[in-house]
């Protein structure tokens, strides 16, 4: 790795800075943590995206505005936030928790 110190280029053999890189699944496949799984029920979904707004993990995925959301089960930790905030259609939630 080359670094510039006081205008001089210096070659460092070993990286001296503990530099990390953005990584998906930096703590592993956290879907393993789940005991309950949120299940999506399309006919009750009004595409309000409240689930997307509040999911702490970013595991509610929406490909484009106007599309239905879906869940990334590889990393979803099963916290139940999305189910709790979902208004659904006519009081029928579009998400529900089911045992793993």
């Amino acid at each position, binding site marked *: 790795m080359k670094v510039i110190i006081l205008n001089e280029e210096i070659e460092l053999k070993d990286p001296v800075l503990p530099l990390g890189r953005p990584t998906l699944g*930096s703590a592993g496949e956290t879907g393993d943590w789940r005991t309950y799984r949120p299940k999506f029920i399309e006919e009750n979904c009004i595409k309000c995206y409240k689930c997307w*707004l509040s999911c702490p993990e970013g595991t509610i995925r929406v490909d484009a505005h106007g599309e239905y959301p879906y869940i990334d089960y590889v990393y979803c930790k099963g916290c*139940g936030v999305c189910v*709790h905030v979902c208004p659904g259609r006519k009081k029928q939630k579009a998400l529900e928790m089911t045992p793993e």
Partner: protein
Amino acid sequence: MNVKIPEMMNRPEVLLRGNFACAGCGLSIAYKTAISALNRPIVVIPACCASVIQSLHPNVTYNVPTLNIAFAAHASAASGIARAKKMRGEDTTTVVWSGDGGTYDIGLATWSGAAERNENIIHFCYDNGFYSNTGAQRSSATPRGAVTTTTPGGKREKRKSVVRIMAAHDIPYIATASIGYPRDLYTKVKKASLIEGYRFILIDAPCPTGWNSDPAITPELGELSVKTGFFPLYEIEEGKLTFSKRSIRYKDPANRLPVENYLEKQGRFKSMTSDQIKLLTDDLQHEWDMLSRLE
């Protein structure tokens, strides 16, 4: 006007999936909402849950440049970065992302210096009201009556008003926000990002692990803390305070939900006596009264 959801959806993803945060973590909601509102952010993080959830070296869950640093150096490191980037003509937004321990307590002298110099940084404090990552010790943000490992009988003192200390520095922008209202939070961050100088945003961020609450109700706790008057939402611009739309009606105590609605959903308040709840209610009213003087 609050931001529309499509705008938020078009922003880059700043917090990557599969990290060490507990299920239902309020800090995660705060981080992904607030940091995604910024253009080219550089984030300085002192020791706190935010430094833990980024996971194990060399993997990092944050998708933005991040510097981990000691408590007492957060705002000074950010000051240096912001100045260096300006000298180099780079258009970046330098921020401190700290817990309440790192803002109310341990990093106070540092941010006070940076605020006095009016450094061009945004200081975020996600407030879960205690030291969570080291095992739930009290902080000066812990509310009266809350059980932590160092206040097993419930904290005897009231929560400190860090915002009023911050306000005494006469910085250009201060706001409070909550993960119960992500669009309001995003809108305030966006507004702050267009202002120059030291800006401070305090975010109510429930912590199911330390509060002993159901992870699924994290956003509901954020809403309840506003509706019970526990956590008022407001902005202070050039010394003038304006209560936010979500909070203005709770200025009148008659409009507030009973504070018990909020307390009973959290194990940390389970053992509170009615006398303690009365004292807590007085603490909350005192804070509203003091804030109203700044209107």
